């Protein structure tokens, strides 16, 4: 018991040491690297999806190792006076290994997504859609109306959307995203109120709590987060409470980001309590993430991630870890090559918790 608490305390102290010494704040590494809020590069104030004009220009001129000059102007997503578009395509080759299991190597189209924005009232009211068109049939991820106040210090969003809770990572299998169940594969229908004031950002969302599925109870899901953003650090807290008929699930997290020279750090720690699981089994989890992004040279990023999951805080010895080493090369605008491996470790009797994943991914974006 003492050991577990000591470990948790140590983990908390390390988190504080990693970030509080410099101040703190959070968001995926590009935002930390630039010292900007997510909404600077994305139409969605909480990040992800269609890039803003600033985001498009950044992605073509600053992100790649080399900008190939063309007779055309830089792509800004503008299709007309009112319409903007964008997209992401991910195709990979991977090899998955696990003990006592036949290895799987495959080519796969991981994801092709297109984004559309209609500026119905410029700078005030927009309609937005994020559609996954491959693999498989078309699938709507986000579709909402967003109303900005005249001074852009608050907004109201209504429709289907990703919920605000900590770092919005690209890797949807990260422990911190699967433990809460709040990620970019589980958008939900509801409303979100956002407040942006100086260094502060806050969101409050109320949604059905069914990850976009059919409503099966009157319970609602409430998600909220508060972030403070400085130029070299950021820190935030997040909470989620989903009151469903089978039992409520709650999650609380702290997250941050820090830039130390060429290295951008991300961290998040969260606890979840799922009362829908009976008998007190497996209902309280702890998940953490620590990630370093080393900008070796322009267009060359080395990402090292350490993750930890305690799938049941009432049980000792069931912890899982995952290390990832990913090299991201953006040789020219619109194209990125990501290669790396993920190394899982868990209890000896579960082969699936000892999976090794090696992959090369082509990421096209505009």
């Amino acid at each position, binding site marked *: 018991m003492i050991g577990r608490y000591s*470990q948790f305390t*140590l*983990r908390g102290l*390390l988190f504080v*040491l*990693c970030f509080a010494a410099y101040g703190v704040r959070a968001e995926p590494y590009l935002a930390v690297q630039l010292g900007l809020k997510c909404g600077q590069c994305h139409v969605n104030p909480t990040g992800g999806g269609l890039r803003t004009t600033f985001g498009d220009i950044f992605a073509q001129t600053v992100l790649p190792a080399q900008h190939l000059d063309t007779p055309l102007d830089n792509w800004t997503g503008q299709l007309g006076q009112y319409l903007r578009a964008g997209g992401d395509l991910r195709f990979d080759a991977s090899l998955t290994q696990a003990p006592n299991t036949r290895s*799987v190597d*495959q080519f*796969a189209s991981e994801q092709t997504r297109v984004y559309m924005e209609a500026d119905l009232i410029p700078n005030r009211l927009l309609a937005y859609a994020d559609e*996954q068109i491959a*693999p*498989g*049939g*078309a*699938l709507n991820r986000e579709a909402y109306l967003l109303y900005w106040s005249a001074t852009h210090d608050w907004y109201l969003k209504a429709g289907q959307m990703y919920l605000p809770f900590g770092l919005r990572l690209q890797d949807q299998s990260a422990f911190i995203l*699967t433990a809460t*169940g709040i990620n970019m*594969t*589980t958008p939900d229908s509801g409303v979100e109120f956002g407040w942006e004031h100086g260094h502060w950002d806050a969101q409050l969302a109320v949604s059905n709590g069914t*990850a976009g*599925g059919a409503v099966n109870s009157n319970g609602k899901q409430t998600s909220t987060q508060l972030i403070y953003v400085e130029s070299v650090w950021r820190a935030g807290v997040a909470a989620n409470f989903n009151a*469903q008929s*089978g*039992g409520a*699930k709650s999650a609380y997290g702290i997250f941050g980001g820090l830039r*130390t*020279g*060429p*290295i951008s*750090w991300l961290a998040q720690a969260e606890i979840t309590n*799922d009362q*829908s*699981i*009976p*008998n007190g*089994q*497996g209902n309280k989890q702890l998940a*953490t993430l*620590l990630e*370093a992004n*080393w900008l070796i040279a322009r267009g060359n990023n080395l990402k*090292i991630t*350490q993750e*930890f999951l305690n*799938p*049941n805080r009432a*049980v*000792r*010895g*069931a*912890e*899982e*870890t995952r290390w990832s080493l990913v090299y991201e090369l953006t040789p020219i605008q619109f194209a990125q090559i990501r290669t790396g491996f993920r190394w899982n*470790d*868990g*209890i*000896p*009797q*579960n082969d699936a*918790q000892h999976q090794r994943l090696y992959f090369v991914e082509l990421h096209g974006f505009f």
Partner: protein
Amino acid sequence: MQVGRYRFWGALVLLGCAAAAGCAGNGQGLDQNGQPISSGGTTGGTTNGPVTADFQSIQANVFTPICSVCHIGASAPEGLQLDAAHSYNLLVGVPSNEQPNLLRVKAGDPDNSYMVRKIEGPNFGISGMQMPLGEKPLSQATINAIRQWVTNGAPNAPAAAAAAGQMFAVQTTAPLDQATVKAPLARILVTFTQDVDASLVNDTTVALERIDPTSTATGSAQNMSAAARLAPGNPAVLMITPSAQLGPGVYRVMVRGAGGGALANMNATPLGANTSFEFTVEPAQ
């Protein structure tokens, strides 16, 4: 120099954090799902107090310790595996082998759930013997809890939540790959880790063929007429019903998980690769 110092401290902090970030558990005293062996948790092998009207309790107290002694693995009676990994998807919405007009568990209707009848006894219109076979019947309190769970709609909320974080994949099949079963075989089941998009279940994604195991020629397989559909109330289960019951022979089921229109879950995530399994139907004794 400034950049070099940052790199040094950055690397040092990373190493410090990583070193203390925790290790994987040793798994001592746990089952393969990380649950205490002695607690009879969600997958344990011992009982855990009074059975309550939820699937996890029923699994832990009835299916795992009592039923899965026989109903497990490739030779599970009637292809019904009742270990924790398979039981739900082979019960809910799946027609009974003994009385195909009845579902093993019909959500919301315990009276017309064949599994309930089988544990209630011979006075309830069952074929074969009361379950558990050769054991004393379940207590009335346990039967009542199971009935109540069915009445409640046979939910499996924790598994559904867990499925959201799982990769979409084939979970199991009945018959299992390379299994041998007795003729005639009326139905083949393929269960998945997540619900399947019903609009993608068709002749191009699911195929049944009879093969000649002695031949390596590609044309040695014969397509079999069969209807594929998802189990009522449990869209994680694909049921393949041949037009005629399968007689002795070797058969192969193919599920297309790649390419346009591939079988996918409700989030349009396809299986990612084609899957097939073979089984042998041998003459009845």
